[in-house]
């Protein structure tokens, strides 16, 4: 299955968990809505950005990105790839999904409907951006925090 197809598949599952009445002991799977949204975002963004030349190396996949950036982990390499190639809005939404997904254990997996809705919104914005020409969603000088 292509990277993009995997992203679409995850996006659909995240949406089903959010909108349909699927529960366990009366509770919806909002924590999984966020986690699956994050994994969907990963696939859309990798499919959109790669292949890419980084430090004179042609990178077709994340392992090559990791090597080109000389970074120890795939997670860090992917985040750098996103911030280097997408505007602040999209990159920040990606980092938000990453943090919400990775740190939910520290908040005992308690996720509100508002946060799950936000995950869906951010994922949809990422998907929309990944359908646009790369130049229109690339980072700009004005993206950097000023103060």
């Amino acid at each position, binding site marked *: 299955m292509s990277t993009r197809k995997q992203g679409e598949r995850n996006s659909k599952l995240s949406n089903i968990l959010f909108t349909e009445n699927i529960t366990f002991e009366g509770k919806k799977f909002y924590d999984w809505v966020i986690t699956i949204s994050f994994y969907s975002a990963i696939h859309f963004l990798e499919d959109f950005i790669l292949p890419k030349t980084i430090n004179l190396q042609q990178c077709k996949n994340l392992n090559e990105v990791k090597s080109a950036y000389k*970074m120890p982990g795939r997670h860090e390499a992917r985040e750098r790839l996103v911030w280097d190639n997408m505007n602040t809005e999209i990159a920040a939404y990606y*980092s938000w999904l990453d943090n919400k997904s990775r*740190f939910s254990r*520290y*908040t005992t997996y308690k996720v509100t409907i508002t946060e799950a809705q936000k995950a869906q919104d951010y994922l949809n914005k990422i998907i929309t951006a990944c359908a646009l020409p790369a130049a229109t969603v690339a980072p700009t000088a004005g993206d950097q925090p000023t103060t």
Partner: protein
Amino acid sequence: MNPEIIEGGTALFYKYIIQHQDQVSKHYIDGYYHVDVVAEAYSQGFKDGKESGKKDFLEEMRKNTLEKFFRRATQVYVLTKTVVEFLNRNKYKVDSIYLDVLAQCPRVIISVNDSLLIDDDFVKSSYAKIFEMKRIFSELFDSNLDMGLVSSGNLNDALLKADGFGYSENLAINEHKKTRGKK
């Protein structure tokens, strides 16, 4: 150690890293192997019997490792405080910071009110600043800083401690004290 939040400041952070410096030699720091591994390798190749040379070498290794640890830990703290100050300047309140400076790749979690994390403007500006700090760290140390945001609601301090976030500051309490002191 109790999972209590330490009321903070630079002095307390230094106190913390000094108290934990003994743990540093047990970790792989900033591209150096565990001191014992290097010492073992050195011992095997050490054929001329100069015990003093071996001792000097070990001491030098220990000093280097500690120096790198202090430099790196201090930078993690400074970069974290830079984010906190940036958010404060933009009228966003930070509740607490949690630091794991002993890990091979240091980690920082900044906790804020739940409502901020669903505010698009906050999300954009805070993550942009955080990524700027991560970039600075990786340029300085050829290593990565894992820094992120979490909601303060339902935050499990004990779990954070257990996961290695050994240093924390409750900035909400400190801010409250400062405000009270001004009256």
